[in-house]
């Protein structure tokens, strides 16, 4: 069973090695002759104004909150989607699986419409 995950582990390992490798190899192999002009944030660009530690708008938080709930909804679709063909061919389940998911989604879409009408997706 673990054998199936070996490609996944390889991808993760490659991603980590690649990310760190590209960042640090330029530090290791490249020549380092810094001067104040080079070290500025945008060498040929506009001088930055202020710090990066700005307060973000609370709107982002609300979007993230809605995102998590939709995320949770998708989680429940996965087991159904993986097993759908088997469920459909199963005589004791048949089309029930389809309608069960339809009801689940319709119930959820009521919430979606509620948020839409309430203006939850508006940015301002």
């Amino acid at each position, binding site marked *: 069973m673990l054998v199936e995950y070996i490609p996944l582990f390889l991808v993760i390992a490659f991603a980590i090695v690649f990310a760190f490798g590209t960042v640090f190899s330029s530090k290791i192999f490249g020549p380092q002759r810094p001067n104040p002009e080079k070290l500025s944030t945008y060498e040929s660009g506009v001088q930055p104004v202020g710090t990066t530690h700005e307060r973000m708008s609370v709107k982002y938080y609300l979007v993230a909150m809605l995102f998590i*709930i939709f995320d949770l909804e998708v989680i429940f679709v996965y*087991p159904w989607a993986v097993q759908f063909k088997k*469920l459909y061919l199963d005589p004791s389940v048949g089309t029930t699986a389809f309608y069960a998911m339809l009801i*689940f989604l319709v119930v959820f879409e009521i*919430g979606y419409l509620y948020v839409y009408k309430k203006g939850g997706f508006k940015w301002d």
Partner: protein
Amino acid sequence: MNLYDIIFYLFAIITIVSATFVVFTKNIVYAAYNLLLTLFGIAGLYVLLGADFIGIVQLIIYVGGILILILFGVMLTNKITDVPIKSGVLQVIPASIGVGMLAGILILIVTNISWRNMELTVPESTIGSLGMLLMNEYILIFELLGMLLLIALIGAANIARK
């Protein structure tokens, strides 16, 4: 020490080291990013235990969702770096009693259980059987979950738009 052990210790080290950073770092942004690594390590451990669905849920909900919420929460605050995160030492005696009792219970549990070495029988994939159960025995609970999510969505909409 086979491949399984090596992968287990890799994820365990990732989890524990990043969790230690979460506790001890002075910058809350670093703490949040280390929490990402902690949750990722736990997801890896779930997969190793054969609970692949829980592993995916851990990745999608916690790493992808809750952590973004935490990061946005951090970004909402005005000061990020120079915040005294550590609270002072308060209530030493009740705290030590609580910690001592918890440690005692944990030690009792660990020493009293007869740990057995079981032959590993990891199921192929749990998602399939989970889908079967969700659509057969627990179909009512499944629909109720839809209602629960609806309530959560309405609550979130009400918080978002007064």
